């Protein structure tokens, strides 16, 4: 079982998140591996452990700071870390990013075939959930998204997913791109031994040239969308907070009535 997990370097949810020049501000201090990618790493590790053999690769795309994301994956127990870093990638939209990731996946797949690429259900900065679909299309592999359960047998992956209107079971032949939700598993905590080993573990760094990609295909220039304005929203004005001394329910109702909401 050979699995590649994509991990993204995103601002910590508890930090003050912001935009700089129309792009999400990413810094070494506040950056971390996207929390939902922990479920993807966990899913990969569990499948390999259950199979009793195999390898897990963690791949990230981003500037030098993004290496923190694959280091976190190493701490959790992945075997190999890959980092695609090239200034020309900055400002890519989801389609540019998918091209880069697909090229890196193909490079690994050519060395020895992969069975799965596993991703998180969304990155908690952009929250578009579009990358798994774009990646599956780029690779022309099977696509199984939003898995709350995942199993692999006889060359086929099967997932369960909970949509608003239906619970579905879907199956598709390997190789497949699978995205897993935060319901799929409970991510493990890194142990001390792995934390120490992750510090020294080698990280393979690739540029666009290494992947045979033309810089003009990716980056801000090729992006189909541009953020033209980003501004912080002012906090809600005129907030009221009351402590119940016996009539807060009535006060609450009166507030709703006054606002025309009840």
């Amino acid at each position, binding site marked *: 079982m050979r699995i590649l997990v994509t991990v993204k370097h995103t601002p910590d949810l508890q930090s003050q998140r912001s935009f700089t020049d129309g792009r999400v501000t990413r810094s070494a201090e506040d950056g971390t591996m996207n929390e939902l990618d922990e479920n993807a790493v966990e899913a990969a590790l569990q499948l390999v452990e259950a199979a009793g053999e195999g390898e897990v690769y963690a791949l990230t795309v981003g500037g030098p700071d993004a290496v923190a994301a694959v280091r976190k994956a190493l701490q959790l127990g992945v075997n190999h870390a890959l980092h695609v870093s090239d200034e020309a990638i900055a400002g890519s939209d989801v389609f540019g990013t998918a091209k880069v990731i697909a090229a890196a996946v193909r490079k690994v797949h050519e060395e020895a075939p992969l069975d799965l690429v596993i991703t998180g259900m969304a990155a908690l900065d952009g929250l578009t959930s579009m990358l798994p679909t774009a990646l599956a299309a780029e690779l022309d592999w099977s696509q199984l998204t939003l898995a709350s359960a995942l199993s692999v047998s006889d060359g086929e992956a099967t997932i369960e997913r909970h949509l608003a209107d239906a619970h579905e079971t879907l199956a598709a032949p390997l190789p497949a791109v699978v995205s897993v939700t935060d319901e799929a598993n409970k991510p493990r905590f890194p142990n001390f031994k792995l934390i120490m080993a992750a510090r020294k573990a080698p990280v393979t760094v690739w540029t666009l040239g290494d992947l045979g990609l033309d810089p003009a295909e990716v980056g801000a220039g090729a992006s189909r*969308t541009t953020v033209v304005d980003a501004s912080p929203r002012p906090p809600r004005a005129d907030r009221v907070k009351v402590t119940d001394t016996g009539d807060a329910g009535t006060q609450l109702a009166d507030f709703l009535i006054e606002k025309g909401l009840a």
Partner: protein
Amino acid sequence: MTTVAVLIDHRDGAVTRPALEALTLARSLGTPVAVWLGETPSADAADQLGEYGASEVRVVDAADARVASRAAVAVGAASEDADAVIMISTFVTKEVATRLALATGAGVVVDAAGAELVDGKVETFQTVFAATWDVRTRINADKAIVGVRPNTTQATPAESAGAATVVEVSVDLPETRERVVAVEPVEQSDSAPLAEAPVVVSGGRGTNGDYSLVSDLAEVLGGAVGASRDATDEGWISHEHMVGQTGTTVTPALYVACGISGAVHHRGGMQASGTIVSINMDPDAPIFEISDFGVVGNLFDVIPQAIERIKEHRAS
């Protein structure tokens, strides 16, 4: 801008309110045409689409379009001439939008709160980072695909509405690698689905698993019942009710948080709501930071009193 295709969301043959909101938005960008996946709509449904401005209803009888790649081909065939395609943003339509964009070279924005034409290009606006930032995005590509959130446009009938012509679009849907092994429909309550509801009343840890008061308040306010991750993890209520970044993102006119502390994951799924009201025992609960009206108190005391007052007011 000439033609704007709108993927119509429909349930049990009826057009949903978000679909009418999307048609209303589409009218501000050009001439809407409705794209309908599934069996031919009833005359009533087609009339309603016409009333909200659709000049045509393009029907692709692809009822098994649950797989994104097939749905994208179906929508693509019905929107070849469109400069913009509007969908209601859901996990499923995000996949359809992505596939359609790859097939057509379109630029995509999902989870938008609105869109307008600026110098012939579609620009969208939306809130991000748990509704702490406003972002405006220009779609540079010739074709624009916009996923809009429910409750972000007021649905209004067109001023000069005509009858919509129903057109059948024939398309060969591709074979896909993915196969649907089983589909188990989720039982729908009588109220609007969570994402579409104009009012959402949510319960969290503070309910201790008792959703009766939360449901009562939701009923009185004409809203849907939501929940925090804590509550769904406890098994107190099913996953479909979860409001949050990884559950359902809601933007109702009124959000009432009962016994919910307001962890960042929850806030990310509701912070863009119109008016936020919260009840929590803990005066330091983060939910109060984003509440227009907060009550530090016990929801088992506060909710019954509020319901009584609302009923009293309505009777008077």
